[in-house]
């Protein structure tokens, strides 16, 4: 296709909007002091926590999201369309609202939180577990949406053939559905990981900002920005590098449509 020339101007502006802020960050940073600013106990702790929690929540998204996507795409239960819309809620909800909602469910005064506290003595908010829960809450829709789309466009004819060949539903799921879903699963997992890595609003509301426990990299940037802007910029650059790594690892298949 020949691209109409009028598209070049807004396209260039869009690219500038993505690239220039990162350049601004680079220009603002003091490159000579960068290593010493990054290699501090608090930022290293935040880096470790971020990677650990994002990895855990990605696993959580896969374990819970794959079955959910299959149910949403294949089930003929009445009301499934409403459910499909509800699953998208975290995608449109401001994360802070999500964090508040989680707090009033699992907090000591929330009904499930009260139950957990009284019966098991477990308190969820302001723990690393809370960080993971908040990340799963905001990230899972990305995985579910991409998997459900892949399942729908693939149709169920391969699964039907599997059934006529004598495979029971679990065998069909294991040997047909999941292998054919792998490309979409890869892209969905990368998207979820990236979303979990950048999660801020729900985390700070539901899990707070305790160094080494709940203070992930985005929270570290926010905290540093209040006292030492140079450190904040340095940690922000660390996040940029991490994000670029995710893109490089995931490319070319995962982020470009996810069918390859």
């Amino acid at each position: 296709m020949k691209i109409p020339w009028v598209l070049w101007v807004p396209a260039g502006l869009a690219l500038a909007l993505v690239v220039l802020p990162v350049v601004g960050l680079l220009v603002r940073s003091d490159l000579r002091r960068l290593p010493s600013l990054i290699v501090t106990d608090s930022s290293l702790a935040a880096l470790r926590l971020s990677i650990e929690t994002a990895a855990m929540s990605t696993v959580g998204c896969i374990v819970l999201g794959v079955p959910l996507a299959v149910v949403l795409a294949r089930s003929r239960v009445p009301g499934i369309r409403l459910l499909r819309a509800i699953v998208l809620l975290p995608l449109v909800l401001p994360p802070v609202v999500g964090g508040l909602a989680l707090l009033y469910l699992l907090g000591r005064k929330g009904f499930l939180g009260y139950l957990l506290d009284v019966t098991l003595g477990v308190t969820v908010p302001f723990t690393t577990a809370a960080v993971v829960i908040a990340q799963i809450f905001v990230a899972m829709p990305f995985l579910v949406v991409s998997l459900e789309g892949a399942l729908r466009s693939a149709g169920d004819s391969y699964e039907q053939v599997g059934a006529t060949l004598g495979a029971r539903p679990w065998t069909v799921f294991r040997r047909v559905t999941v292998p054919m879903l792998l490309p979409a699963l890869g892209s969905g997992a990368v998207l979820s990981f990236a979303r979990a890595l950048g999660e801020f609003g729900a985390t700070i509301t539901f899990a707070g900002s305790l160094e080494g426990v709940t203070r992930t990299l985005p929270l570290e940037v926010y905290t540093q920005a209040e006292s030492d802007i140079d450190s904040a910029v340095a940690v922000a650059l660390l996040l940029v590098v991490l994000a670029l790594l995710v893109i490089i690892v995931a490319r070319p298949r995962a982020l470009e449509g996810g069918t390859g």
Partner: protein
Amino acid sequence: MTLRVEIELTRGSFELAVDFEVPAGTVLAILGPNGSGKSSLLGSLSGLLRPRRAKILLGDRDLNALQPYDRSIGLLSQDPLLFPHLSVVDNVGFSPRSKGAGRRESRNIARRWLAEVDAAEFADRKPAQLSGGQAQRVAVARALAGEPDLLLLDEPMAALDVDAAPAIRGLLRRVLSSNKERATVLVTHDPLDALALADHVLVLTEGRAIERGPTREVLAAPRTAFTARIAGLNLIAGTAVDDGLRTEEGRRIAGMLAADTALGEPAVAVFAPSSVAVYPAGDGHPGSPRNIIAASVTALEPHGPVIRLRTDAGLAADLTPAAVADLRLEPGSAVRLDIKATTVTVYPASLTA
């Protein structure tokens, strides 16, 4: 195992009500146009659709009470639907493996079936590396590798190009005739598929069976106008020779041999009533047609815009009403039937007929 079927099914405003029997070792072709209920019928047999009321007895098992995976069926559709993530050998081994065989045993079974369909050399390829005809060959092996008691063929040649279709048709003829236990149901809109593969034909339209019987009889002498329109063909039985066919009486019919026709084997010359030209018996009209048959008219039947002429030679010809009037044709008229050799195709005779 013999298949006995009674099905009533409603989908929206469409109703299907049909019953039939397929004796063990035989093939029944369900012939019908799009929307006649063929797919609903097949879906009910495979278990992917749930009929309102059905009795589907395979031997003494009621399939209708079973899930698709417990029915012991094989399904071959027009799309091979090979699992893209599995190698050819694992595709074919899928059914034995799902039914409890180990990996090594399943692969051995798969290799045996691949050899059976002349596809052994594709064993280690991925489905994406096969042509349409090769993939369908593998799909035949996959459907058979589970040793199904009932084989369902859903327009298996419809998506193949003209070069690949005769080869698959020939392959199906071979594998179908080598098993005397299995019942096979072939769904098709092409009377030639029925002719090549089926012992019996059931003609389906708007969810009802309007005609049934031995393939050759139904196709050559349809009792309903509808069957005549979709499936009415001229058939002449004999032996395949290099320029066509020789009948038992020694008459030669010039024609083109289909790709899977073997010389000296029983064969059928097939041509449409529309490719038969009719001349008055005394007319010395010279022409290129190599097949000239003397006959006398037995009946004239209107078929939509044309008139179908039936003759005592067992052949039919389609004419316009104007031509019938010009030639003053009526039952008893002596005529000469000319059939151009290029419109005649000589197919192998069907399995048992």
